[in-house]
């Protein structure tokens, strides 16, 4: 019985974290957007507008459920649930610290990638169920984009998995630091199992994974419908894309899922390529920085810190780069990212056989 209670407690804690993160990220997004454009962003609600997103969510919660009369009632109501659940379930296998992961399954990475794909069905349901041309157009674009970009993202991840030799995210993280069972090799030849830190991360174990990480990062932007790949939402041309007809709590859940997705893909990148909860500080001689900064609390701090940094970069990119056209989007995916990802995978194979023995 206590067993199930723990499960529920973990789920509630994760949900709470997601909600808090979404509130914080929306505020950060608006502030960064403001600063980048020489504005101030929200300033009126609370000190420096810090209570703005709490006020927003309070407003959304109070609103009435409005279903358009022409909408497909069941699909319309079910879509936000599916979109949110898909992202929420993704968090189930993400490692936070040494020995701290909701579920350290052996198929962790495969599971995350699979469960994120369910998101596309939710988006299509939202667009189709709304019975609105903008929504349908948006969701068609979303599905085309997500399905396409899963290929370079997946292959980039596979090239890291070939180096790591595991799909278990907890083990994968473990092998990128000082607690590794098989010695991590910096650039393929230097044993850094005693030094750890930055040097043991996957991107530095095999330098072509840096390219793989860039590919994954670009593809992950497209997967969570972030600018410059936000053509499914495209506020300026499609009103709001697939969520045009949504309001109140349903919209809040779609929005929450979107921001949670940002965090999730950033976290996958961090775990697979950037050492997860491992510290970036290496041991230098008698200065055992890596050993001092490894532990459950440090682990959570590093995971959060790295992931928030990547989320920050996502926001920064959103307010810099203009939106791609649909055909440019597909060109980038199929003609550039996919071949590059295949190249990375090929190098990984060679690396595995010759460099790592």
């Amino acid at each position, binding site marked *: 019985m206590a067993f199930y209670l723990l499960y529920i407690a973990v789920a509630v804690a994760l949900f709470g974290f997601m909600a808090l993160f979404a509130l914080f990220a929306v505020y950060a997004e608006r502030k960064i957007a403001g600063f*980048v454009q*020489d*504005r*101030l962003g929200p300033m009126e609600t609370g000190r420096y507008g810090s209570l703005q997103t709490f006020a927003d969510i309070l407003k959304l919660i109070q609103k009435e459920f409005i279903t358009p009369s022409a909408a497909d009632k069941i699909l319309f109501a079910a879509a936000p649930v599916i979109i949110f659940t898909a992202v929420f379930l993704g968090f189930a296998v993400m490692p936070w610290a040494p020995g701290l992961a909701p579920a350290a399954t052996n198929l962790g990475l495969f599971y995350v990638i699979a469960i994120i794909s369910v998101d596309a069905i939710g988006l299509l349901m939202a667009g189709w169920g709304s019975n609105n041309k903008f929504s349908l157009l948006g969701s068609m674009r979303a599905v085309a984009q997500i399905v396409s970009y899963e290929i370079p993202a997946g292959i980039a991840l596979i090239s890291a998995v070939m180096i790591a030799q595991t799909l278990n995210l907890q083990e994968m993280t473990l092998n990128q630091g000082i607690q590794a069972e098989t010695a991590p090799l910096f650039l393929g030849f230097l044993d850094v199992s005693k030094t750890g830190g930055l040097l043991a991360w996957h991107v530095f174990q095999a330098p072509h994974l840096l390219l793989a990480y860039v590919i994954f990062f670009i593809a992950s932007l497209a997967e969570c419908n972030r600018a410059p790949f936000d053509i499914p939402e495209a506020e300026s041309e499609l009103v709001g894309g697939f969520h045009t007809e949504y309001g109140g709590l349903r919209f809040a859940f779609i929005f929450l899922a979107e921001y949670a997705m940002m965090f999730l893909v950033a976290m996958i990148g961090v775990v697979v390529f950037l050492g997860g909860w491992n510290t970036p500080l290496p041991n230098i001689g008698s200065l055992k920085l890596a050993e001092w900064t490894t532990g459950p609390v440090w682990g959570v701090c590093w995971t959060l810190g790295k992931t928030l940094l990547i989320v920050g970069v996502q926001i*920064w990119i959103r307010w810099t*780069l203009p939106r791609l056209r649909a055909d440019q989007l597909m060109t980038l995916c199929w003609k*550039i990212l996919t071949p590059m990802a295949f190249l990375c995978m090929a190098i990984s194979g060679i690396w595995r056989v010759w460099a790592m023995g």
Partner: protein
Amino acid sequence: MFKTVLHAFVTAAKGLGLTLAHLFGARRSRKTRDVRQADYFEKQEGVTTVQFPREKMPIPEVARYQLDVEIDDCIVCDLCAKACPVDCITIESIKSPEVIGKTSDGSVKRLYAAKFDIDMAKCMYCGLCTVVCPTECITMTDQYDRSTVSLSDLTYSFSEMAPEDIEAKKQEWTRFQAEKEAAKRG
């Protein structure tokens, strides 16, 4: 392909650098707020937002915002109302049997302004009324912040006559007319 990719990265990095510079530049606020200063457009760094009710942009004394009427100088010629493209000025005049007085520039006043209403909600701030006014009694002021809760508050009444005054002056004019008629017949 590699050339295109490289180009994409270089241009993206350039753009990201620019936005990052602005992101960190936002710690400062723009000092020069007065558009009349010569170097106004040279200052490109820092936050431009003016947090309005708490801080205001400097405006010239001769700024052309809301209308004001010096009713003592008005000869009720109705030219402003005729010039107004949006018909936001409504004037009602009452004739007077004799000269009422003089305006500050010496024009003779022969009409009472029973009603001189300007609907600022309609006004488009073209300033044509101020151009045609012979006594320069209708002017544009530097007042621009006149938010009200009711639309009718935006109709400014400049007439200073009380209703009984208006009634008295009207009767006076009808009596004068009647007397003139009687004198003609008689």
